[in-house]
């Protein structure tokens, strides 16, 4: 049965959310209550959406249409629905000359899970800093990360599904340094990721 569940988990990861209710109908979720923790691993594509001057209009990022992202997260349940935690992610995107833009955000987040047995739909908001590196420049930027997801709770320990996070990266320059304030931008990216969560 365990092997079968694992096989279903792989299929589920590949295909997204599927109505596999029969597999979970007799399970109890004893790791989704206050004091429990959830370790999240995610991987997925990374899509640059737009750059925006502060107060300006949305413009093309000039980055390639596809990059990639990896992520780790650790959350602590406050009750059956609410959790607090943190996330570490890494993403790459590519410029017209194939130079690589690296962004590594570290965020703290609060998540609320809507539950419809055996599925749960987390909605969260994160905020933190992003280490942003491109060619010889490195920044510490500010980032806000609203997230929505759809998870299938396969067992009391494992959940699988998709999480989509909107990255809003603030890159302000005050003009006092070598970079003019006119180079201030807000960057918008999105990463729909396959997610596996271990509850313990």
């Amino acid at each position, binding site marked *: 049965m365990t092997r079968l569940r694992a096989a279903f988990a792989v299929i589920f990861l590949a295909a997204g959310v599927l109505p596999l209710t029969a597999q979970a109908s007799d399970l109890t979720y004893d790791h989704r209550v206050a004091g429990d923790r959830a370790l999240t691993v995610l991987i997925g594509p990374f899509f640059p959406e737009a*750059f925006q001057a502060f107060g300006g209009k949305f*413009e*093309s*990022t*000039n*980055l390639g249409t596809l990059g990639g992202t990896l992520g780790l997260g650790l959350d602590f349940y406050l009750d059956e629905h609410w959790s607090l935690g943190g996330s570490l992610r890494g993403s790459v995107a590519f*410029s*017209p*000359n194939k*130079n690589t*833009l690296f962004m590594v955000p570290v965020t703290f987040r609060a998540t609320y899970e809507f539950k419809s047995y055996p599925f749960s739909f987390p909605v969260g908001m994160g905020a933190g800093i992003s280490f*942003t*590196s*491109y*060619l*010889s*420049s*490195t*920044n*510490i*930027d500010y980032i806000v990360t609203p997230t929505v997801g759809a998870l299938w709770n396969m067992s009391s320990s494992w959940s699988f599904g998709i999480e989509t996070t909107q990255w809003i*990266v603030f*890159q*302000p*320059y*005050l003009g*006092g*340094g*070598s*970079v*003019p304030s*006119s*180079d*201030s*931008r807000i*960057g918008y990216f999105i990463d729909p990721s396959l997610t596996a969560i271990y509850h313990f």
Partner: protein
Amino acid sequence: MNLRTWSAIGVILLLVSCSQGTQGIFASIQREQKVKSNGGLSDGATVTHMAEFQGTGAASYYIAGGGTLFHRLTGATDWQPATISAGATYNRFMAVGSAGGNTGTLWAVANYDSTGSNKLFSSPDGVNWTAYTGLGNVTPQNLIPIRKSDGYSSDSLLLTVTDNTSGSLSGSYDQVFIITSSTVGASLAMPAITATVGTTSTTTNAYSFPITGAATDGSGYYYFINNDALYSYNGGNITRIPGNSPMPTDTSELNGHGFYGIAVLPHGTLTGVGNGTTDLQAVITSTNGTVYWGTLNSGTWTYVNQVNGIKDKYYGQTVPMGTVILENQTNPAYVWMGTRNLVTNQGAGFVSLSTAGVYALQPPSGTDSDNYNSATTSTITTVSSSTVTSLATSQILLLFKASDGSYFAGTATQGLWKWVASGATGTWSQQ
């Protein structure tokens, strides 16, 4: 560190992105331009000649003009330089053109050795070149595509040469050669003319000006044009049209107007010109700013009308016209003409003549009514929806249609541009 220092660090971390360099990361990515590895072809290159050729190699474009021959696969974006002989002294290419179609022969006028003397070369594949030795005592100067009567394609080349013999013909353009596929035809003498210098009348074919435009009607007639007149050839002698009148006597509406380019067009292309079902048409450009059109059948030119290109911004300065081609990817079609020198090395982009009965000369973007002025009508029709400043202020020395329907414009100082039709207009991009 004291509390004030920690506070300052905290404020900085809270408010300011830490960066090296002089540009914001996102902003610099936004501004980043893709670097073309064009093998040395710069955006400021001179491009005078172009060919699309496969031969025994891969289907490629070839361009020349600034002394270097560049080639690229037709589906690629980056140009690569070519050489006559690796390690040669010069490897300077003056002209390139194909004859005999896509699998015929690629021809070039180039010099590569320490003499610096032009030679004619042929290549079956664009890589291996062989010097042609059967021209006689002449120096090759230029290869001119002989445009077919569709107004844009070319299957043969006209080779212009200067005479190396001593005497009055030395250095003159007294003969030409027609190149079809791998064959160079016999030397064709330009017709003798009678010129009066002072009170002395002299008969000579020591031409000071080369042929600059060539076309054929598909039934054996070739048409050449130089600064002074239009000529025909159909297997006998080259004949001046009309007749052998001495130049520059103004015996026809064409004489003495700095003619430069010619395009023979299918019947009915220009609305209301000649018999729309039987007459071939022709458009002739001049560096004096006048564009002529009429019919051209079996060596007979019948003038119909003309229009002047005047660049109002420069107080009535005329727009010198050059190469000419039919653009038939839009409906209606247009006759495009390249402009030549206006001020120093600056031109006025390409000029467009509508075929739909609105015979106005139009600027490249078609929206600047203060750019060109038509002597016939002030109606302006948009040709391209985008304004391309560097193209619009260039000398256009080359207009070329590729087999995929795109058009190329070679400029004096702004490199090569490609136009792709989109609906009733099109988009230019620098190559």
